[in-house]
């Protein structure tokens, strides 16, 4: 440890452990206080209801579609098959996966009678929402990076068309609320584009893409400024050295400036994309069932809002923390090389 790192640091004596104790006491007090308050309003905690919104075992009934009698029940691959025969000699065979047959040979069957049931594991709403949030975030991050990279390069270009376009884009995006931008993408651009496509006889673009585009454009403006700052932080001598060797602007950028700039902007970029993951929670308002919207739906069916919102926050934390770890790993790896 270096000398400056020790300034103001407690020695690990009695008072150190005392304050560690104070921290955990405060934390415990907060949780206990919350729990006590919920008891006061008669809230019943039912954490056991949470797992079913990740995975649940769905029961599927196999039902008859004709009237008749059960002629035979025979084992089949992975279950049993039930053959129903009617008076005119027509027969139909139904397959019951797992073999949980609820009728016996000779029973009289009417249409829609349950012949057997099978169980199947399905992905719950929360996990679907998490997956949607992850998908949106990854796609928006990818396009946000590309938009931001070119936005940043255009921003420092000496060509006024490129430079002013970049400034206009950055100022408009940074100067208006993301919620409004999402509405504009969905209700204005989305309507325009889908109607024009319909006129041309082409299929609509799904809502998901307008939502993702709004996030990518939003993040792109901030990334552009980060990229610009990163490039400008590289010493002028680097450009001069590259150019003096005969490299043109693009070669100098690609081989010399950008590799150094990207290394420096990883921490602010990580912050931006963590924001993007969290901002994706706004997309629920345009009917994209991401994690927050999924949680809202789960709350209405489970009637356990406290547990569900805590779980929702925890799931976002898992995503953002993973990204944070990933960038720390990237940073370390780049320092080595």
């Amino acid at each position, binding site marked *: 440890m270096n000398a400056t790192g020790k300034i103001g640091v407690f020695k690990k004596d009695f008072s150190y452990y005392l304050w560690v104790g104070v921290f955990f006491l405060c934390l415990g007090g907060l949780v206990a206080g919350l729990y006590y308050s919920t008891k006061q309003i008669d809230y019943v905690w039912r954490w056991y209801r949470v797992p079913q919104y990740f995975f649940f075992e769905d029961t599927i009934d196999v039902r008859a579609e004709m009237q008749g009698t059960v002629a035979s029940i025979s084992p089949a691959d992975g279950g049993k098959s039930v053959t129903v025969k009617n008076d005119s000699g027509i027969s139909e065979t139904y397959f019951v996966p797992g073999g949980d047959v609820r009728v016996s040979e000779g029973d009289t069957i009417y249409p829609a009678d349950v012949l057997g049931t099978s169980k199947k594991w399905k992905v719950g709403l929360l996990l679907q929402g998490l997956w949607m949030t992850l998908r949106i975030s990854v796609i928006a991050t990818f396009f946000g990076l590309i938009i931001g990279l070119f936005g940043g390069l255009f921003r420092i270009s000496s060509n006024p068309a490129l430079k002013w376009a970049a400034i206009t884009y950055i100022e408009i995006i940074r100067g208006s609320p993301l919620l409004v931008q999402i509405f504009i993408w969905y209700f204005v651009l989305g309507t325009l584009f889908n109607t024009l496509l319909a006129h041309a006889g082409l299929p609509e673009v799904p809502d998901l893409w307008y939502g993702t585009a709004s996030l990518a454009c939003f993040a792109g403006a901030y990334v552009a400024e980060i990229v610009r700052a990163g490039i400008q932080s590289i*010493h002028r*001598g*680097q450009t*001069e*050295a*590259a*150019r*003096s*060797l*005969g*490299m*043109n602007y693009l*070669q100098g950028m690609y*081989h*010399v400036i950008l*590799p*150094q700039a990207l*290394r420096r902007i990883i921490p602010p970029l990580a912050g931006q994309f963590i924001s993007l993951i969290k901002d994706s929670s706004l997309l629920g308002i345009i009917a994209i069932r991401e994690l927050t919207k999924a949680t809202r739906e789960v709350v209405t069916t489970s009637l356990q809002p406290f547990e569900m919102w805590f779980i929702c926050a925890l799931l976002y934390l898992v995503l953002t923390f993973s990204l944070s770890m990933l960038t720390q790993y990237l940073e370390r790896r780049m320092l080595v*090389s």
Partner: protein
Amino acid sequence: MIDVTDINKTFFVPHKVKALVGVSTKIAAGEVVVVIGPSGSGKSTFLRCLNHLEAADSGHILIDGVDILDRKTNINKVRAEVGMVFQSFNLFPHKTVLENITLAQKVVRKRSKAAALEKADYLLKKVGIHDKANAYPDNLSGGQQQRVAIARALAMDPKVMLFDEPTSALDPEMIGEVLDVMKTLAREGMTMVVVTHEMGFAREVADRVIFMDEGAIVEVGTPEHFFKNPTHDRTKLFLSQIL
């Protein structure tokens, strides 16, 4: 090789300064020219104009017959023929010594990897740091870094080498190793323009010394002329201050 006619350069930022005022000179192939002068005299600006890192406002600069102030000239082609060594080295910190030397060969000269490596190998031996080929610039001493920078410029097989105060940022004990490399180059017949405060180098190696002050060339002559009987008062004053 280099033919400079009446170039002017004025800086407006941070305030208006006439950096070059009607500078003209000719430098022949194989000649070693040392440019001296007090700080702010325009000698570095003059050098940087020669490979268009600064654009002169008016006049003509012909490098090997090509006017680099002509808008139609592809400056990148000219720069590939003009090597430059900077005061602060400006090595690429994210690349190894070897990669520093091979990068422009591959990108600009379109040499194969093998050819570029062979050239780098030869040059690293020449500047005497062959054992540091895979080190990063940050792990080298200043003198070693500057020698890598010279090797990087030489790798392009330039017709002219420009040195912008190559030893000013070095610790005293490392100046010698860089000057030795430059002396070797001069003896091999490289055309060199050197901005420096190393009067010993000027005396020993230069074919011609140019003294600049306030953006203009004040006096031109052989080293003997300069250090024994300078004619101009400003030259005398400057030399008396530094010798």
